[in-house]
């Protein structure tokens, strides 16, 4: 037992060291490893969740942008169709209007023509009336000079021939 003596082994100290080490293991486990390992697990889970969420968000974003593109495309198509439609309609309307205008114009022209004709006829009539009045006045003036029948006849003839000219 000289070896034990020289190594300084003492059962009291051994027990003290054992208890000390046991306490150390327990406390380090309880307050060191366990919370830290759990913490690491939690964090790993959180990070995993975060990564998954980010992926999901990315996918959703892509989906949304795809949708957006589709919507824009559709809208463009629709807008083009509407514009085309409007153009066509406008063209039709224009043609219609032009046709109507032409018709109207021709109607108006015809009306005017008839009016002008009428007016012309009226004018001629009036002129004729005026001329005959003038003739009568002229005749009366001539008649005032007391001409005989022969002279009278001669004058009338003269006037008529003049008129005919």
């Amino acid at each position: 037992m000289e070896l034990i003596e020289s190594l300084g082994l003492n059962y009291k100290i051994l027990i003290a060291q054992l208890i000390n080490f046991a306490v150390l293991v327990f406390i380090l486990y309880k307050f060191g490893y366990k919370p830290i390992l759990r913490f690491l697990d939690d964090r790993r889970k959180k990070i995993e969740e975060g990564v998954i969420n980010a992926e999901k968000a990315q996918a959703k974003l892509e989906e949304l942008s795809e949708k957006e593109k589709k919507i824009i495309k559709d809208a463009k198509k629709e807008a083009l169709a509407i514009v085309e439609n409007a153009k066509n309609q406008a063209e039709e309307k224009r043609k219609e209007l032009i046709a109507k205008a032409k018709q109207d114009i021709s109607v108006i022209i015809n009306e005017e023509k008839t009016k002008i004709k009428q007016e012309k006829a009226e004018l001629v009539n009036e002129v004729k009336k005026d001329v005959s009045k003038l003739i009568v006045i002229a005749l009366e003036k001539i008649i005032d000079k007391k001409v005989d029948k022969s002279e009278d006849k001669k004058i009338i003839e003269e006037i008529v021939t003049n008129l005919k000219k």
Partner: protein
Amino acid sequence: MKLNISLAPETIFEIAGFPITNTLLWTFVISLFLIIFTLILNKRKKLIPGKIQSVFELLIEKGYDFVKSIIGTEEKARKIFPLVMTMFIFTLVANLVIYIPGQAAVNLHKSEGIVPVFRAVMSDYGMVFVMTMITIITMHVVAIIVHGPFGYLKKFINFSSPLNFILGLMDIISEIAKIISLSFRLFGNIFASEVLGAVMLFLAPFFIPLPFIFLGILTAVVQAFVFSVLTLVFISLAAEIDRDEVVEQHSI
């Protein structure tokens, strides 16, 4: 000046007949330091870690991964990790603490001579022996749990053939050798590096001890690692089921 080297730790004082040796004192001090440090770390932990927390998280995470890679499963690793990690941290801190300079100068003058107050904890065979016994007992308990009491005994005492009987005896010897090799590896290395350091300081106090101190620090780290890894390996070997045993169990 006389160089005083003692294999046994020196008693500094006694409390009611209980001898407090210098190594036991430092065992307590280092344990207390580790416990307080752990409690502070635990109290201050945040989900987004600071620098100190990151370092210790890294240490524990890598340690855990290492333990898992050797022992195999998550379940076994959870059980054995606290023991192995504590052995590593405690041994490492205990080995490195003596390299804080100025310690060799602090001595007590007692009736039986000069007693150094500071001494490496692992240069006390008692502490190493306690840790070794923890390893060995855990190992055997695990083996009994895994193999069953008869399967465990059959490994050592086996009369099925002369060869198996001799192999059983060899196993008993190797178990005893394990205790000695495991404990004296750590004790011897740390004690030797302490003695070497003291001798070099005694012979040439300036510059020449430096390489030996570096060597000592290397030894301190390596031995802490070796001791805890050997513990881990012994226990994981004991927890493994041999191929022929599996066959046997299936045939039954």
